[in-house]
């Protein structure tokens, strides 16, 4: 393998991803499989564009998993996490234990030593957080009960890595110190040199610091950062935080993924949460992609060609054992049948932790090179096959349970964010927000004025910082499951753009929008929104009512006239829209617009006075009839 520069490598990886992922997506295979295939293609056994450096890249890219857990933490309120404790420790604990015991038994049956068997069992019991969560998130399965159970198990496995790393050296014939382990379980020797109770104290204080900073300091820090109005500062701060936590956790020997997950949970209530999600998401996605490519590239096809029977048989055993244990446990823990299958298929592979544990075990001379290489290819193949298994589950297995699945989807949606989003919280949005709140509806509010946010939060609004017209922010605010989006920003272009984007991408979301003027209203009419209101029309008419009253109109008359006028205005606008609003060619230069608009309005006003159509309580004709009858009567009597 020749040496490649950083940029050459970057080009190879990016090109592979850009080519493979869209194709895989188009074929309905999901992005994970796309990345894995890309990795296999550029790896040493097909094109050979990358070689041994693949495994280094894999360790670097594992940071994607760390960021992913941070993002998952952000979605998970502490109360929700607490309610999952039984599943995490019960379901997760039993899964790791039972699976490890079964694999150890198989190991002994295959005449490995008992130490090796236990190590193999513990190694293969863990599943792949990266592949599973990414695949489930892509399919939107994380919110349902199988998704939650899957997540609980993965979380427990993350915690379990720490004791497993402590146990492995005890099994080894020659005990080495753990400094030589690489990847994300890298220990600094000064911590390893401390007593157990000192380490514990250190761990508690670091975790305490994370919680304290997350709860009390980050909000102020972000307010200052947001005040600078520079988005890249926000990105920098977020990255600084995540990397900082990961390093700190490493130093005390805890899993960095666990640390950032904890930080995410602490920040889940934070008003800057959506912005944090929006800025860290691309980094996570790219790093995870890189990680999947590296996994694909690391598959040792040489070994597969040499011993195809053995590898395939062992892979079958690995998947069947894990699947059976998961299926049994999911029954005991009361998942519904369709969900049991999803859960069991999702977690049936070995995971990225296995790479670390295998490397660690062979350094400790616990595994022979032969065992290591067989295990490595098993792990990589099982990971690569997971997206296929999920696809199989989706297309062949789930249809059998379809009816049962439908019953339960309804109550699961409610766990999502509040269902009304107000974009823009200036003079206009604030009035709508107050009105909704007064009616017991808590809207999610997006605004980019950091000054507002602090104040509004005090009064029970859920306010988030960010430019509402950015699609990623909308997505993290839960637009996908929202019932209603109210666009209250005062920028004409942005309003139209946003309305268009949401209508096209999320056709189920109802959209109400504020129109700046008549032209803008027509523009929005073309998008078939659920409702459009001209921004100052109603308040102008209300002031007009007061004007009439000061001109000695009776109050009710003035009031009724306003209602008639509004009704009439809606009709006129509809007529004008039908007349020339749909015709884009008639959109004329900005400068002339207002004038023409005024002319159009006034001339339609001329054609039909509102009072022509209003005969309410009008007794004129009745009076005439009575008078004429009376006259006839008198003439007859005369």
């Amino acid at each position, binding site marked *: 393998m020749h040496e490649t520069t950083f940029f050459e490598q970057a080009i190879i990886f990016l090109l592979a991803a850009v080519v493979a992922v869209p194709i895989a997506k188009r074929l309905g295979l999901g992005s994970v499989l796309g990345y894995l295939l890309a990795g296999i293609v550029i790896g040493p056994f097909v094109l050979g564009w990358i070689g041994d450096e693949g495994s280094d890249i894999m360790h670097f890219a594992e940071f994607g998993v760390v960021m992913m857990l941070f993002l998952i933490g952000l979605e998970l309120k502490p109360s929700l996490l607490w309610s999952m404790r039984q599943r995490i420790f019960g379901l997760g604990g039993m899964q790791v234990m039972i699976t490890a015991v079964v694999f150890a038994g198989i190991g002994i049956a295959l005449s490995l030593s008992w130490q090796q068997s236990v190590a193999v069992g513990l190694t293969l019991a863990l599943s792949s957080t990266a592949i599973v969560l990414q695949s489930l998130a892509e399919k939107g399965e994380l919110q349902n009960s199988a998704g939650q159970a899957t997540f609980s198990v993965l979380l427990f496995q993350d915690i379990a890595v720490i004791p497993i790393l402590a146990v492995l050296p005890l099994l080894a014939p020659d005990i080495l110190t753990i400094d030589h382990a690489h990847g994300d379980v890298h220990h600094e020797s000064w911590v390893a040199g401390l007593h157990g109770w000192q380490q514990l104290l250190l761990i508690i204080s670091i975790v305490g610091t994370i919680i304290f900073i997350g709860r009390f300091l980050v909000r102020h820090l972000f307010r200052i950062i947001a005040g600078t109005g520079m988005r890249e500062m926000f990105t920098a701060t977020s990255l600084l935080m995540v990397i900082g936590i990961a390093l700190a956790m490493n130093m005390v020997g805890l899993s960095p993924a666990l640390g950032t997950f904890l930080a995410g949970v602490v920040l889940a209530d934070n008003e800057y949460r959506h912005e944090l999600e929006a800025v860290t998401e691309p980094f996570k996605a790219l790093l995870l992609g890189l990680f999947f490519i590296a996994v694909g590239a690391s598959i040792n096809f040489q070994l597969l060609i040499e011993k195809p029977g053995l590898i395939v048989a062992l892979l079958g055993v690995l998947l069947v054992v894990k699947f059976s244990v998961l299926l049994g446990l999911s029954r005991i823990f009361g998942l519904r049948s369709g969900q049991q299958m999803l859960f069991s298929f999702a977690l049936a592979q070995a995971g990225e932790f296995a790479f670390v544990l295998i490397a660690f075990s062979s350094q400790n001379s616990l595994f022979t090179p032969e065992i290591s290489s067989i295990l490595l290819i098993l792990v990589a193949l099982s990971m690569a096959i997971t997206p296929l298994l999920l696809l199989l589950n989706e297309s062949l297995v789930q249809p059998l349970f379809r009816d049962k699945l439908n019953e339960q989807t309804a109550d699961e949606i409610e766990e999502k964010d509040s269902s009304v989003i107000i974009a823009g919280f200036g003079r206009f949005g604030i009035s709508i927000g107050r009105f909704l709140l007064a009616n017991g509806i808590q809207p999610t509010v997006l605004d980019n004025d950091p000054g507002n946010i602090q104040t509004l939060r005090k009064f029970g609004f859920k306010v988030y910082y960010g430019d509402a017209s950015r699609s990623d922010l909308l997505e993290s605010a839960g637009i996908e499951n929202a019932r209603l989006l109210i666009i209250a920003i005062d920028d004409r272009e942005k309003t139209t753009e946003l309305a268009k984007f949401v209508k096209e991408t999320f056709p189920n979301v109802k959209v109400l929008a504020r129109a700046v003027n008549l032209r803008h209203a027509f523009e929005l009419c073309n998008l078939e929104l659920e409702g459009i209101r001209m921004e100052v029309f109603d308040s102008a008419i209300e002031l007009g009512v007061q004007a009439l009253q000061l001109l000695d109109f009776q109050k009710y008359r003035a009031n009724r006239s306003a209602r008639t006028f509004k009704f009439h205005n809606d009709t006129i606008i509809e007529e004008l829209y039908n007349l020339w609003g749909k015709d884009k060619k008639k959109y004329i230069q900005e400068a002339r617009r207002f004038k023409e608009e005024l002319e159009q309005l006034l001339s339609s006003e001329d054609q039909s006075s509102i009072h022509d159509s209003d005969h309410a309580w009008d007794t004129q004709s009745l009076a005439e*009839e009575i008078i004429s009858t009376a006259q006839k009567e008198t003439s007859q009597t005369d």
Partner: protein
Amino acid sequence: MKKILVLFAHPAFHKSKTNKQLISEIEGIEHVTIKYLYEEYPNFHIDVQLEQQLLLEHDIIIWHHPFYWYSAPSILKEWIDLVLQHNFAYGKEGNALKGKAVMSVITTGGRIEAYMEQGYNCYSISQFLRPFEQTARLCKMNYLPPFVVHGTHLLKETELNEIKADYKKLIVALRNELYTVDDFQQSNYANDLVRK
């Protein structure tokens, strides 16, 4: 087959128990149009032209509402004030509604014993409904005996279910022209027609 227009007026539909069930019972019957007046005109701005057009298109008008202060909720009065215009509904040239029929459908908390000379309401429902009856007459329409649900606060589920079924039966029978003029004249309440 007659066409029926139900003008339903209930200002607090979300709090309604009896009326909500009654109206949903007759939802979707062929040739029956239901107008939720408060839903249609939340700010009382009644579209007179549209309402008159609807009247022309139907043969039987039902005023369906809870009995508030011995009368209808205010929007129905507003509707009567505005829609039944001179020279449309009444007056020398006002023959648009001639020959159509009107029926009141009413729910009330008071039991039938209360609506008697000896009861605390002193007068019968029919007596209280005189203004509606005369309104219909002035518009040259036939005022049919009312369908009345008494004692709504004490209704048991089974009783309400029977009443719902009666209401539906009544509407279908009216549509299918099953009752004669004699039938109407002999009945105090339209309820009796269905139970016969």
